[in-house]
């Protein structure tokens, strides 16, 4: 199984969400 293909830009993710009819799963993460 390939790793998750993450979007990095909010606007791009929302554009894809509209096009593909899916919700967005948004992870705010901290490199600690």
């Amino acid at each position, binding site marked *: 199984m390939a790793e*998750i293909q993450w979007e990095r830009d*909010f606007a791009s*993710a929302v554009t894809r969400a509209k096009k593909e009819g899916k919700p967005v799963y948004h992870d705010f993460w901290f490199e600690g």
Partner: protein
Amino acid sequence: MNAGPYSNEQFQAFVQEQFIPLKTQVFWDKQSELMERFTIKWTPTLIIHDKEGREHHRMVGFVPVNDLIPHLMFGKGKVLFDGDHLIKSIEAFRGIVEQYPDAGIAPEAVYYRGVAEYKRYHDAAALRRIYDALAAKYPQSEWARRAQPYSQIPAYAEV
């Protein structure tokens, strides 16, 4: 970073198929526009947005994979519920209870499934079923206590 669930093949397949996955790195010394817009104060903060970018469900802090998948299913159900796609939301909430009955979000899914059924079919017995199901399966949950007023509704009531 929520590294544990992301190395799980079941989660990888689930999120890739059902969602648009999006990552935003947080820098505490440099607040970004997105951090301010969504009031990010701890990590990980995990949000389910609809196709307009509106928030419908949020998790703060690490969530193990056996709880994270049902949380995402719940978020999808909330997007549908909030958009008045009630039949599809009922299916989403039911799926959580059937597939992940021990998940932390399961009692809330029982509650929302009943509310969606009530809104869709205008049958108050759906609210009574919320109470009955929560009292039977999750009697210690906050949602069982929040459903307590529905215990007064007749089991076969109609509005």
